[in-house]
């Protein structure tokens, strides 16, 4: 966990130091009403918690639907799935998101809660596949950079995910990147 936490701390600190002063100075007057994110995701799964010899590095996808209530506050539905040769894990979470916007940049943080589902593909006797399902909550954030009025590049999203499956608690780290699609508009451009 130390390495992962150090990474999160380093990333978050870098983002805060660089972005916050600029964002605090000025925020855009417009934002899309809806945003849909889809992209690649890496998960460091705490599989030692349910008896694996080591934690697992898994690759997969992350998708999210974001409804912008106003320029700062949004509701997010976050889905992700990551895969290894014997492991599959899925997270289904929802929660509030706070965003700082300036020109083509956007920095956001969110808190999420939902379900985690871990599947271990082994065969024991006549039974194939063992599944652990439990609650999950997450905290994290990321940085987006506008490509065009319709598309944004999510440079990075990093989350700490605390889940509970197979009767044990997992401390996981997820890092995602991808593209955000925009729909609709809220706010207005400032008068010149």
């Amino acid at each position, binding site marked *: 966990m130390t390495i992962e936490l150090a990474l999160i701390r*380093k*990333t978050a600190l870098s983002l805060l130091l660089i*972005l916050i002063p600029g964002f605090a100075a000025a925020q855009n007057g417009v934002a899309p009403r809806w945003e849909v994110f889809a992209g690649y995701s890496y998960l460091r799964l705490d599989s030692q918690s*349910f*008896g694996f010899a080591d*934690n697992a590095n898994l690759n997969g996808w992350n998708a999210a639907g974001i409804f912008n209530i106003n320029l700062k506050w949004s509701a997010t539905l976050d889905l992700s799935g990551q895969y290894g040769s*014997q492991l599959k894990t899925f997270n289904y979470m929802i929660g509030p998101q706070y965003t700082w916007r300036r020109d083509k*940049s956007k920095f956001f943080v969110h808190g999420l809660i939902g379900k985690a589902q871990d599947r*271990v593909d*082994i065969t024991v006797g006549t039974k194939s596949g063992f599944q652990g399902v439990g609650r999950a909550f997450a905290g994290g954030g990321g940085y987006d950079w506008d490509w065009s009025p319709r598309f944004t590049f999510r440079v990075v999203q990093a989350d700490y995910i605390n889940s509970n499956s197979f009767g044990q608690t997992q401390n996981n780290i997820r890092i995602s990147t991808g593209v955000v699609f925009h729909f609709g508009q809220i706010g207005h451009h400032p008068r010149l």
Partner: protein
Amino acid sequence: MMPRKAMSLWLLVLLLAGLAGCGGSSNYSATPNPTIPSGSSHLAYASIPSGNTISGFRIDGSGNFTEVVGSPFPAGNSPGAMLIHPSKQFLYVVNRAENTVSRFNIDQSVGSLTEVLPRVATGVTPIAMTMTSDGGMLFVLNQISGSISVFSVSAGAGALTQVTGSPFPTAPNPVALAINPSGKFLYVVNSNLALVFTYTISAAGLLQPAGTPIPVGAGPFAIAVDPGGKFAYVANTADDTVSILAINSSTGALTQVVGSPFDTGTGPISIVVSTSGQFIYIADQGTNDITGYSIDSTTGFPTVITGSPFGINTPVLLVGDPNGIFIYVLTQRSVFVNEFSIDASTGVLTVGPESNSLITVPVGFAVSK
């Protein structure tokens, strides 16, 4: 303030550097579900005869147990004694009620077991097992039929093939066996006769009685040989003693060390030697404790370890940790595997974590290196 494009670029560089730094400083590969470097954790299994199952655990460096996914695993009829192949790939378990040995493949990553059928026939009521240190030969002690089944073990698959002439007869009602680390001598304890029999082991696995059986205390029930092959230890249940026997490294012959047998608690029933060979521990079922002795490496003379005996309720089986850090204790009534950590310099035992709760009382336990 920094220009926007420059700021974005700088941010990207920072993030990529952070990600790269994470990968570089980690011991883990970035490939999905890597094969495990064993690290400080190891696998352990407990046999549960009442449920015909085997429970699996991962034990970390601090001795904490985590039950592995899929546990408990289905096993044969009344699984008992078990051992893990030195390669850590296979688990062998005797099925006492069906007179067979089961072989399980161990998934090193998950810790799960997959039995490889068919099971291999033994003599009647297999109760104990031992293996050569290279994992090439397996010996099964058959209590009711009074014999030893010997199997060669294939290097890649761990498959068992009974050697020519097996099973080899012993005196009636043998109860325990131990192999010399050289792989040349096998010792079998007979409880009724209060004798230890020595056998020579040929390269092909043939057993030949060697010399005269050595008398020990009354009701011997367990035997262990130290990793250096210098001494054998026998727990004498009926007279509350431990016999310490010096081993002739050439002939395998046993000789009582001066003063043997030595006192233990009441009803010594199991014995284990530390990986250093410096300490022995004896489970005293009657007095609910573990007697610990420090052993003089030259004379074999024992000295009671400070703090001994160490209390535990009705211990029946001691199993040594191949890594030398812990000893594991099965008791007559507990549905947990109990653990003690060993002080490497003094031999003092300290109570450690216990396992997750099992379905019912386990009778066999095996730990991988």
